[in-house]
Every structure is written in structure tokens, then in C-alpha cells.
């Protein structure tokens, strides 16, 4: 027999309570690990975006105001030696949807020549790039729509635009990207869109946004200023911002779920701390005399303290594992894919979130144990024993 054994036996003493506490702990923990996974995913995407060193240039008024496609030459002209920027890719919103479905995909027509450079994280192989350059109807699709519509590489698909003049175009899917930062996109060649628009005599070549691949963070800052200065007081005044600032505008307009999740996570930690604390208090109170006996037969105060602390931590660990493991397993096998939020196409529990959750649980266990453990340590053996009779 060891002290650990005694601890385990203590948890078994009141099985009902241990079970109730573990469940009351596990349920919010399941929420916590999901919420943290979600937030972690956003942080990861934000970090990845930051690394890509991309600047977005759109019309000052809104993204829906077009910029002339000649602006690309002007931006490139700011750095003819290519010491600061690598490439500029103009993009035009197509807003295509699969016929008979309600929602438009994030479908964008991109400059064919620079797209592979600006979106280097899509890992296009030389063959992919060659195919993209050769096939005017080439489309590169993220995992999200590919899974939803069961698209395969080589498949021909038709999208109809939801913006005037509501073109219907067909595409060849040349690549399904599994890059988790770009899951909900549908990219195709802008020359294809512009030529098709010309056929119906729609207005000329224009872009909603230009994405610039920069070479350094300093280059980003200087270009950001120069571009906005260059277009100031012209009809095409621009707003240039980095990718994360650009995304933040939408995150807010999409209900600020990351913010919501952060608050949820905080509330959940509060709740589990209360639940665990409550149990430890009750358990301590019922065992006051027993703990006094421990002290009487020679257990030192710090030892009694750590017995209660260890019990609390053990309880928290059991509760958190009970919450985290099933949630992680469930989401691993049944990822919630119908959930589309910005670049995120599915919720799955990340290892980071598991580590964070277990750490938090550990801290909560310590926190919940501190007060009862302190009281147990300070317990006046004589008083506690006298309370018996």
C-alpha cells in the first residue's frame, strides 16, 4: 500500500460524488476543448497568414467597389527591382454557386500568372502550375467545397454567379488543396472570367482586391503606405491592409465566434473550478476527523496538505479526461463539417487544445484543492477529534 493507493481509495469512498463531480467537470470541459480548438485554429491561421506576408489592396469605400485592373502595373511599378514584393495577384469576386443550391462559394477569379506565387502555401507542384497555366478553365478548390459536393480532381463543374450579369461558367478542377488554412475557397483564372464577361458585353476588366506577396515585414509596411498614398485623391482610392486585419473585419460581421468562444472558455473554467472546489470542500468537511487522525498518528501538515491537493488534482484529471477524450475522439471520426466559418471548414480537436485543456484542468484541480488542503493542514487535531463526541 502506498499513499497513492490511499488517495485512489478516497475517490472511491463516495463513488456517487466522484461520478457526479467528474461528469459536472467533464461536460464543461468538452465545451472548453472544442472552444479552445476553435480559437487555436484561428490563432494558427492568423500566424500562418502573417508568415505569408500578404497585403490586400481594395477600394477605400468597400470591397464591392471595383478597382481598375491596371492598378496592378502601378503597384508593381513601386518596386521595379522586385526587392520588396514578389508578385501581385488581382482577384475578382465571382460569387458562384452550384446550380440549385442557395449559398455562394468563396469563388474568386485570380490572375493566372502570379497566383501560384502569391498563394505559394497551396503547394502547387510544377505539374499543377503547368496545368493551371495551360487550361483556361482550371480551378483550384479547397477541401470544404470538394467534400460538400463530392468533387474529384479532373471533374468538370458548373458554377453560376450570384452577381450581375449572373454568368454560368464551367471549370475543370485541377487540384483539391488540403491546405487547412484555405479550405473554403474556389480559385480560377481571371482571364477566363473577363473573356466570358466580354462576350456578354459586360463592363471591362476590374478587380475587387489585389493581393501582394511581400518579401519582408518592413516591405509590407512601406508598401502599405506607398500604395494608399499613390491612390489618395484619385477615383480609385485604396485601403491596404495585411491579411489578418482584412479577415478581422469579417470575423466581426460573422458574429465574432472566436470572441464568443474565448468568453465561453473563460466561463467554463470558472464553472469547473467551482464544481471541483465544491466537491473538495464537501469531501474535506466530511473527513475532518479522519484527517485529524492522520495528523495524530504522525502525518506532517505538508503531507496532509498534499494528500488533499493530490486528490483534487486526481479528480480534475479524471473529469477532464472524461470530457476531452470522448470529445476529441468524436470529432476525429465525425468532424462537424457543416459548420463553415471563414477559413475554417470543420471543427476538430487539436493536440494543442488537448494540452491546454489538461493543463487548465490541472490548474483548476490545484486551485480547487488549495483551500480545503490549507484548512486540513491547519487543522487543530485536538479540536477536530473533540468534535466527535
Amino acid at each position: 500500500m502506498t499513499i497513492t493507493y490511499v488517495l485512489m481509495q478516497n475517490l472511491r469512498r463516495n463513488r456517487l460524488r466522484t461520478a457526479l463531480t467528474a461528469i459536472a467537470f467533464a461536460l464543461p470541459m468538452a465545451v472548453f476543448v472544442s472552444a479552445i480548438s476553435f480559437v487555436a485554429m484561428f490563432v494558427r491561421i492568423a500566424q500562418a497568414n502573417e508568415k505569408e506576408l500578404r497585403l490586400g489592396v481594395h477600394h477605400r469605400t468597400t470591397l464591392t467597389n471595383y478597382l481598375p485592373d491596371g492598378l496592378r502595373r502601378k503597384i508593381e511599378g513601386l518596386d521595379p527591382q522586385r526587392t520588396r514584393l514578389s508578385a501581385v495577384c488581382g482577384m475578382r469576386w465571382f460569387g458562384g454557386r452550384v446550380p440549385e443550391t442557395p449559398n455562394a462559394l468563396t469563388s474568386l477569379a485570380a490572375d493566372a500568372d502570379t497566383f501560384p506565387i502569391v498563394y505559394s502555401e497551396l503547394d502547387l507542384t510544377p505539374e499543377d502550375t503547368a496545368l493551371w497555366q495551360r487550361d483556361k478553365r482550371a480551378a483550384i478548390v479547397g477541401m470544404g467545397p470538394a467534400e460538400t459536393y463530392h468533387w474529384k480532381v479532373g471533374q468538370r463543374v458548373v458554377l453560376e454567379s450570384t452577381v450581375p450579369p449572373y454568368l454560368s461558367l464551367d471549370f475543370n478542377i485541377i487540384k483539391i488543396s488540403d491546405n487547412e488554412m484555405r479550405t473554403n475557397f474556389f480559385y480560377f483564372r481571371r482571364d477566363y472570367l473577363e473573356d466570358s464577361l466580354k462576350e456578354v458585353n459586360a463592363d471591362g476588366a476590374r478587380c475587387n482586391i489585389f493581393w501582394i506577396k511581400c518579401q519582408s515585414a518592413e516591405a509590407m509596411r512601406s508598401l502599405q503606405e506607398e500604395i494608399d498614398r499613390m491612390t489618395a485623391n484619385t477615383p480609385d482610392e485604396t485601403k491596404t491592409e495585411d491579411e489578418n486585419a482584412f479577415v478581422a473585419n469579417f470575423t466581426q460581421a460573422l458574429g465574432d465566434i472566436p470572441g464568443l468562444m474565448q468568453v465561453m472558455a473563460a466561463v467554463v473554467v470558472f464553472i469547473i473550478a467551482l464544481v471541483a472546489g465544491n466537491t473538495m470542500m464537501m469531501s474535506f468537511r466530511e473527513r475532518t476527523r479522519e484527517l485529524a487522525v492522520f495528523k495524530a498518528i504522525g502525518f506532517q501538515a505538508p503531507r496532509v496538505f498534499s494528500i488533499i491537493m493530490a486528490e483534487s488534482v486526481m479528480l480534475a484529471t479524471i473529469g477532464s479526461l472524461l470530457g476531452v477524450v470522448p470529445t476529441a475522439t468524436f470529432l476525429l471520426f465525425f468532424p462537424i463539417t457543416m459548420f463553415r466559418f471563414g477559413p475554417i471548414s470543420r471543427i476538430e480537436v487539436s493536440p494543442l487544445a488537448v494540452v491546454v485543456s489538461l493543463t487548465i484542468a490541472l490548474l483548476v484541480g490545484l486551485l480547487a484543492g488549495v483551500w480545503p488542503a490549507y484548512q486540513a493542514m491547519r487543522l487543530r487535531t485536538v479540536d477536530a477529534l473533540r468534535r466527535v463526541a
Partner: protein
Amino acid sequence: MGAAAIELTDVRKVYRKNRIEIPVLEGLDLRIESGTFVVLMGPSGSGKSTLLHLIGGLDQPTSGRVRVGDYHLEEMTERELTTWRSRHVGFIFQMYHLVPVLTAAQNVELPLLLFRMSAAERRERVRTALSVVGLEDRMDHRPNQLSGGQEQRVAIARAIVTDPEVILADEPTGDLDAQTSEGILNLLNLLNTDFGKTILMVTHDPKAAAHGQRTLHLDKGVLERDTMHAPRAAAAASVN
């Protein structure tokens, strides 16, 4: 009888409650020889339990000296007292105070966790202690599977497993019927005679008191009467 195992000199104990001082022991002097079975009697609030706690190192006197063996308890820190308790005294309580989730053997083993000792040695000691109290066959029973008398025997085994010189018993038979009490008291007599333990027992029961060699009557914090008498002949004869 050898040297005094326990020696109290002018011990005062005062409790404070809401700024009111309540004297419990008032200048007590006491010598207890090693290997004596001493019975403490007196009405409620006479200070018997306090005296027991002072000797057991659970509490410190307000003034005066408490020596047990070679240790001057009033000079020791809380931490030192705790260590001292684990080696030199064994406690027996009225309500047994066994850990309900542990088996009899495990309850007995509990104090040994504080010693550097191999598992085998611990097991051996537990077996010995339980055989002394006659409960080897109940080793794997939980407290709720034992009778009151058996529980108290386990508690006694727990008190002797560390082989302390002094055993302190606070109304060990207070919750037991006459016949069971007799068994427990005989067991204490056995520990006293065969193992040479110094025993200090608080009790209300005159029949129980008859098992001791010396009876101390406390009243209002003062030693009122100190009677010496021979142990009953029958005491050591039967344990069960």
C-alpha cells in the same frame, strides 16, 4: 517499575474562547512510571482529555513541562511533535476512526507509510500487530464489515504497529457493550504486561478502571485522587 516514563511539572492549560480564558488544567504535577497502566477518570470537563492530548503531543501546555521518555514536548515544534508521535505514541479513540475505504490490514499499515520500510517488512509488522489483537483472519475486511469490538481491535493494532512506548486511549470502550469492552480491556492489559507498554486510558466506567494499576481522578483541572492498586489477576489470562 523503572524510571518515570512520563513526567509533568506544574502544567497549566488555558483555552481562550471569545477573549474569555477558560482554565482546564491548573498546575498539574504527575509522574508515571514506565510500564504502568494508568486510568484517568473524572467528570466531563475535568481536563482528562486535555491531559491525554498534552502527553500525546497533540497539544501544548500554556505553561509547565511535559516530558515523555527523553523528549520535552513543550520545547518541540509542531513539526517535531508530529514526527515524535509517529514513533513514540499510539492512539486509540472512542470512535475507532478507521479509514472506511481501507481494509483492516491497510488501516494498520497506514502509520508505517511514514517510515522508511520495505513493503515486506511492513506486511510482516501488520500481520504481527493483527495477530496480537487476534484479527489475522479479518485482514482484508473493510471497517463496515467488522463489529464495533473488531474495529476497536484494528485501531489498537494500528496504535501498536509502530511499536511505541506509550499508548493513549480515549474512552476506548465508550461505545461498546460490556462483554466486548472486557475483551478490549484485557487486550490492553496484555499489551501492558506482555509488551511492557505504558498505557494511559481515559474512561468513565469504574469496571474499566479496575483493569489499571493506578487510577487518577481529575476534577476541575486538579488531580483530586491518585490510587494505586494491583492489576486484576484475571487480566492477562484471557484476551478474547
